[in-house]
């Protein structure tokens, strides 16, 4: 077996292609966190008093909390006082650009390099993009076209100014500021993010997308996304993310809240490609994210699809609270842990209403020294008559130094509820690689073919424009993986 192991264990060297730094003047707060920092961020954004109060309540609550250590991940203690909680491109005294035309060309260039051109002539057809750079949104495309349909898609800061009633009504309604350590921290210091409102009966004519970019060093990114789909509406939203290569770890603690009213449907897809760190575990993003949606009305539907290839540590459990009768929750996930990456990810499906249904398809890939854990909760409440869940949880191992773990939790309080759980673990064997070689197929192509075959149930859930991208990203993330 030694020769087998050796062949596959040459599975490390990987090049991160988004690791460049944009040299741009920035208005950055010095590291450290206290009430003044919270006030400062709120003041920067001209926030109403109630929002500052909400932040301060969160901050005070956070000070009483302890960082969770139950995930299957290991890392050195985080010094929360060593992080800067706000960094915005542009000089301190300059006003924020009012339209994309006023945005610093360096920023536009950055997004162009990342494959997300923002200016009119090169924009992605059919996709509206909100571009978030460190702590602020630098611009949102296709706004006028969306406005024609009554769709609101803007930065969170703008929404606070323009649509305060919506923010006040829904902020923290799915993820309360007391929810968990990282969500509470986010509630205190969140700087920007995206806001979406789809009016009654409207099918959003474009894919909506937010591209998160961390640029500044020693800065955390704490964005907050809120999507509200009013009765009978439909929206598909995608987020992407990248960061420069640095030896230090950087903190990313985001919160996403989704609200689907009666008969509404929200499809939320993530292609997460934060810098993963190197093979010895130096650098990379700590991705501690709370994502939760509520199917508030009857027959509503929320579908999470995630492709997680980056980050040194991934800690996220996009969840659905199925409150409305006949509502549907879905979770499709591909999580890759290569190099020294650690992923502890999964979902929570909380069935409260009658005839609620949920599907969980999780594909974990472990390579290099990566550790991949699936952690999922299926809860059938006492009123969840005839609720159903199907969970399929597959792990694929590449090489012999990585690990896969599964932690399923099931709680059933209604005797008519049905829960199914299936799990498999397989390994890309040297024999499979050799078999492909013996048919003329190169080792790297063979690995890609096997991995893509393993992931295809999830990839086909992505919006078409991004399915190819996700596949290509997976190929790149496994580049140089097998000798």
């Amino acid at each position, binding site marked *: 077996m030694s020769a087998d192991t050796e062949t596959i264990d040459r599975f490390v060297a990987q090049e991160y292609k988004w690791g460049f730094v944009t040299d741009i003047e920035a208005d950055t707060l010095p590291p450290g966190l206290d009430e003044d920092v919270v006030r400062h961020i709120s003041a920067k954004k001209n926030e109403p008093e109630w929002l500052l109060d909400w932040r301060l309540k969160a901050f005070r609550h956070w000070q009483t909390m302890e960082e969770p250590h139950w995930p299957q991940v290991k890392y050195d203690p985080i010094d929360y006082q060593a992080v800067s909680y706000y960094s915005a491109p542009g000089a301190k005294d300059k006003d924020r650009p009012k339209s994309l035309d006023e945005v610093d060309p360096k920023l536009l260039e950055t997004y162009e390099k990342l494959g997300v051109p923002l200016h009119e002539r090169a924009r992605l057809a059919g996709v509206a993009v909100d571009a978030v750079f460190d702590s602020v949104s630098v611009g949102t495309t296709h706004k006028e076209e969306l406005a024609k349909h009554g769709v609101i898609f803007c930065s969170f800061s703008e929404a606070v100014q323009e649509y305060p009633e919506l923010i006040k009504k829904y902020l923290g309604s799915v993820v309360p500021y007391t929810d968990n350590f990282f969500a509470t921290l986010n509630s205190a210091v969140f700087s920007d993010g995206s806001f979406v409102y789809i009016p009654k009966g409207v099918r959003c004519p474009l894919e909506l997308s937010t591209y998160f970019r961390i640029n500044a060093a020693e800065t955390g990114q704490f964005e907050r996304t809120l999507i509200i789909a009013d009765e009978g509406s439909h929206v598909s939203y995608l987020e992407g993310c990248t960061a420069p290569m640095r030896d230090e770890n950087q903190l990313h603690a985001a919160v996403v809240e989704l609200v689907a009213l009666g008969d509404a449907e929200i499809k939320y897809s993530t292609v997460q490609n934060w810098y993963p760190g190197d093979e010895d575990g130096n650098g990379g993003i700590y991705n501690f994210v709370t994502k939760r949606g509520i199917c508030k009305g009857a027959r509503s539907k929320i579908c999470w699809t995630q492709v997680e290839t980056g980050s040194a540590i991934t800690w996220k459990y996009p969840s659905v609270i199925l409150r409305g009768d006949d509502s549907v929750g879905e979770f499709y996930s591909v999580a890759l842990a290569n190099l020294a990456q650690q992923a502890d990810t999964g979902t929570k499906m909380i069935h409260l209403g009658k005839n609620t249904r949920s599907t969980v398809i999780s594909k974990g890939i472990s390579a290099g020294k990566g550790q991949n854990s699936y952690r999922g909760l299926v809860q059938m409440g006492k009123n969840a008559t005839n609720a159903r869940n199907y969970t399929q949880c597959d792990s694929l191992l590449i090489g012999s130094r990585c690990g896969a773990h599964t932690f399923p939790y099931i709680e059933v309080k209604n005797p008519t509820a049905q829960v199914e759980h299936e799990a498999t673990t397989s390994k890309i064997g040297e024999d*499979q690689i050799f*078999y492909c*070689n*013996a*048919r*003329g*197929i190169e*080792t790297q192509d063979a690995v890609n073919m096997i991995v*893509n*075959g393993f992931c295809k149930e999830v990839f086909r859930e992505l919006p078409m424009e991004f399915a190819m991208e996700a596949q290509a990203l997976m190929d790149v993330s496994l580049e140089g993986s097998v000798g």
Partner: protein
Amino acid sequence: MLEIKNLKAGVEGREILKGIDLTINAGEVHAIMGPNGSGKSTLAQVLAGREAFEVAEGSVTYKGQDLLELAPEVRVREGLFLAFQYPVEIPGVNTTYFLRAAVNAVREHHGEAALNAVDFLKLMREKIELLQLDEALLKRSVNEGFSGGEKKRAEILQMALLDPTMAVLDETDSGLDIDALKVVAHGVNELKRADNAQLIITHYQRLLDYIVPDFVHVLSDGRIVKSGGKELALELEEKGYDWITNGELQTA
């Protein structure tokens, strides 16, 4: 076409092949027979380039090139094909997709344009008809859940698609019922031409009822101890491998 000289090879320091000499010319069908553990499969794996097997001595020349210097994927692109004794299952990878990737890898190696899905399907249908195979196999994942017979038929389909000049069939008959054996043999015979060659590795004589070799070699303890025409296979069947291994041959 293929010239093996004094080939010594083994795995993890244990010598299995102890000096093989064998020359195969275009248009010839050779059979290698031998008891379990004689080194038959090791020979097949070494020819295909499996890394776990180390070559200690000797040379293998294929179409004028040093075969042992070529990567496994290059060997098959150059026309040396191994039909596996135990074809490997690859869950999630569609058989048609896999076969097209294989065919196009070979085509690109020879500077030919890759086949698109439509042209490939046409080619595949042709071969399926020729080999009298069941098309349903192609919709499934590579070898996944195939019966023993289905796997071996799929190997022959791959062989037909890649159109090798030197095909090595490693115990393709093992685990086959008589009907499957006939289908496989039919396929192999259909693919035989004056400009290609076949090396059939088998434990039993019965495959040779359907594929008639020009030469039969008997492998024992890592060496070819006897070579002859097709009648040698019958003699072996009658007398058993003991006839060779108990030492009578050396004096004969």
